[in-house]
Each structure stands twice: as C-alpha cells, then as structure tokens.
C-alpha cells in the first residue's frame, strides 16, 4: 500500500466514524446551543470566553473508543491492515482526530471572531487563548488515546472528567483548611517551588487552566505532557498484537 493512499484510507475510516457517532453530534450541537444561550443571556465576551475555556473538551470527546474497542472487535484483522499496518492506523488516529477537532473549533472561532470584529469586542488575546486551547485539545487527544489502550468505549473520557471532578471536590475541602493555593490560583502567582509543583500537578488533571492569560507560561508543560502521551502510545502500539479472543 502506497503511503499516500494509506493515509487517505485511514483518514476516511476515522472521518466516517466521527460522523456516524450520535454522541459527537449531540455534544457538538449542544455546545453550540449553550454558547448561543450565554451570548443571548449575558454577552458576546462571556460566550467567547466560555468557548475558549471549554472547546478542548471536544478534542477529549473525539478520543473516546480510540484504541481498545477496535483492537478487540476483530475489525483490524483485515486485508487493509496486513503486515502490522493496523499499528500505524491506530497511531495516526491521533493526527486525524486532532485535525477534525481543529476543523470544528476553528469554524466556531472564525464565526466568533467575525462577530467580535464587527461589534468591536474582539481582542487579539483571544487568538493566543485559542492557540493554547488547541494545544490543550491536542493534549486531551493524546491522553485520551493513551487511556483508551486500557479502557473501552467512552470510559477513557469519563476517567479524565471524573479525575477533574474529584480534584475540584478535593480542592474545596483543602481550601477550607488552607486557602493559600486557591489564592495563588486566583492571583496567578506562585511564590515557592512547592506551590509551583502543586500547580503543575493541577495542570496535568485540568489543563484548561493554561488558557487563562495568567498561566500561559505553563503551556510548555502541556506540550511536554502531550509529547509524552504520544511517546507512550507509540511504545504501546509497537507491542500491539491482534490476539485471539
């Protein structure tokens, strides 16, 4: 199989899968409705900020049933994936899902930007925040992909969201005893190494925080974590086999 054709076919299979998922459509259009509602009830700026903070979740959503389901279903035992090509197909899904997610969020961003420019409410900061949001989204796909080696269906996505929920609940209890870290988060200033380490751990679970201007510098950590997740996926993929059930 020629390399270009191989890419084409892998993309088409992934694209059709995304299009055929009702959950994807439900969340995508639900998200659009929510943005419209906030714009209507509050303001354009609130709606845009809400979009910038939450759009990385669309990337996370697309990473559901990325690996394990297909691996165990038997559909990779096909003439299209002979000589280990199923491995490159699975790894490439990171790229294709990222592309599809970028396409969706970029379209929404363009609509927001045009409206913002017309109404004079557009700020160049939004472009930076959008770029960092994309980085967070890419991290979510690489993390979701890594988790989907172990978890079937959408449980990889649920685990990430559950992790975030638990962290926020934990923070509520923690803040009642020691509010300093919450204050640091609010100010965006972390004076000592310990609090900086805590923030870095916080970012692993809730990377969306770096979309806030105060934490731009920590986007490097997100990039490194994304690369790490892809590296681990590559190692896992290399060892993959289509075992008999």
């Amino acid at each position, binding site marked *: 199989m020629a390399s270009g054709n191989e890419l084409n076919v892998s993309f088409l299979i992934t694209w059709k899968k995304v299009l055929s*998922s009702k959950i994807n459509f439900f969340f995508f259009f639900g998200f659009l409705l929510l943005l419209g509602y906030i714009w209507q009830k509050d303001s354009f700026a609130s709606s845009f900020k809400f979009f910038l903070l939450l759009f990385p979740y669309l990337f996370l959503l697309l990473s559901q049933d990325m690996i394990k389901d297909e691996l165990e279903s038997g559909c990779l035992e096909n003439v*299209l994936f002979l000589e280990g090509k199923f491995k490159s197909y699975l790894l490439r899904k990171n790229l294709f899902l990222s592309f599809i997610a970028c396409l969706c969020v970029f379209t929404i961003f363009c609509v927001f930007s045009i409206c913002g420019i017309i109404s004079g409410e557009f700020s160049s900061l939004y472009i930076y925040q959008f770029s960092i949001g994309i980085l967070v989204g890419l991290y979510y796909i690489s993390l979701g992909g890594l988790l989907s080696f172990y978890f079937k269906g959408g449980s990889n996505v649920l685990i990430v969201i559950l992790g975030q929920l638990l962290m926020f609940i934990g923070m509520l209890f923690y803040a009642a005893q020691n509010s300093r870290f919450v204050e640091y988060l609010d100010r965006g200033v972390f004076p000592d190494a310990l609090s900086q380490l805590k923030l870095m751990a916080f970012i692993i679970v809730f990377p969306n925080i770096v979309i806030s201007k105060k934490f731009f510098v920590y986007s490097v950590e997100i990039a490194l974590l994304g690369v790490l997740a892809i590296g681990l996926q590559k190692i896992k993929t290399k060892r993959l086999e289509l075992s008999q059930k």
Partner: protein
Amino acid sequence: MTEKMLTATGLCKRYGRIIAVTDATFSVLKGGITTFLGENGAGKTTIIKIILGFLKSDSGRVQMRAARIGYVPEHPVFFGWLNGKDILSYTARAHGIGHSALRDLVETFSEKIAFDLELLSRNVRTYSLGNKKKFSFLQSLIIDPDFFIVDEPFNSLDPHSIKKVRDLFLEMKREGKTLFLSSHIISEVEKISDDFIIIKKGRILLQENLNIFKDRFIYVEIKDSSLKLEELRTISPYVKGNDSELVMLMEKSRLESMEDLLKTVSCVKKHDLDLEKVFLFFTE
C-alpha cells in the same frame, strides 16, 4: 512449481503459559494450493496471524515473496460504521484501483462467489455470516492477490457457494496464484489441494504433496495381530495403535515383500489413502 512463496522457520508463540506454536517450520510453494490441517486450537490461526503480521512470533522467521496478499479470516468482522461500498472503495483506493475498474472487478467477482450486489449499500454488520465471508472474499479478490490466505474458506457457506469458491480457487491456481488454506472440511480441500501440512498442538507433524503421498502409501488396518508394534515400526515409520489393533501407512512399494508377513495376521484390511485417513492417523 518448486519456487517458494513462503518459508516459515522455527516459529514459536506463547500466550502466557500456553504454548500455541512450537518450532513450526514449513513452506508454501508458488502457484499451488497448500492446505493447513489441524484440530481446533492446533495453532493454525496463530501461524496465519504471524505470517500476516497481526501477531509477533516469540522466535523464528517468515520469508515471503508476495507482491499482494489477500486474506479472508475465519470470522470476518468489519468496521460497524461502514457499508460494503465504503469498504470496497477504501480497499481499492489503498491499492490504487480506480472507480470504473473497481466496479468491473466487483461485478466479476460477485458473480464468481455468488455475492448479492444489493447488499453493498448496507452496513456490513447486518450481513449474515455467509455473506460476511463472501464479502471478505470480495474485498481481497478486487486487489488481485498473488498470495491468497484463507482461514476456514468454507465455513458458513452454503453448498452452492462452497462449489463456487472451490472453482474460484482452482481458477486462481490456473492463473498462477498461490493459495494457502486452513480448513476443517477435509473432503472439500482434498479436491483442490496440492500440498498439505498437518499441525497438532502447535507442532508441524507432516508436510507432503497430497498426490505423491497417496500414490506412495496405503492404509493398513491390522486386528488381533501377533505382530508387535515394534516389529511393524521396522517396516514403516507410520504405525500406531496397540497390540490388538494397529493402523499403519505402508509404502506401496514394500507391500509385495510384506505379503508373507501380513498373511500371518488374522485380520488385515487395506485401504487406499485419502486426506481424512492421513489427518486422523496423525492427529488422533
């Protein structure tokens, strides 16, 4: 027909504590039909998956000289979100086959394997088992493979389709293609096989040319014999059973010289050899 399409040397594969394949060495000759015979769980599918790169062997190596490989698994499964047309179109695209050529190929091969073209617009998951199998054949056939590997080719097929598939295999052979079949339906594969390989508990027991083997050996059943197993082993390496009931594959060329000896035995039955007898002899 002595050029080899595939040579497997010393393949070993374990699943945890279970040894699936041990030191499997065999070859598949170019332009012929080689059949892989073994009981359930003998290691046939594992070896096929190693050959195709779906599994890694723990040791050993596979050398293949195929330009395009076709593969039909025992139980074909397809992506649940694609219909038949999508899958064929992607397969064609992956192999540089244009739209009009694909249409012609699909029509030609659908007829050859009795596949209903109207099914193509439906999701493949909704096909019956037999149609899934035929669709898997179709998917491989459109790429014009020079090496075609089929795991249980006749499973889930009706007798009409079995005949069609058998004829297709013979046609492919006439075109110089190499086929490697793994099957339980010995009566069917016997009609088309050139070579056969018998595997038991992950070990290759025998690889022979079917016609040569059948011409060379005769199947002999001996009951209530005064002859001992050890005595008969000096006559043929292929002897098994106990002292009261023995079976052996005896070389026809030695039969005449053994007549006197066999006369001392009260009950001797001689049969022409067929693939089922060979298979049962080596695997029972």
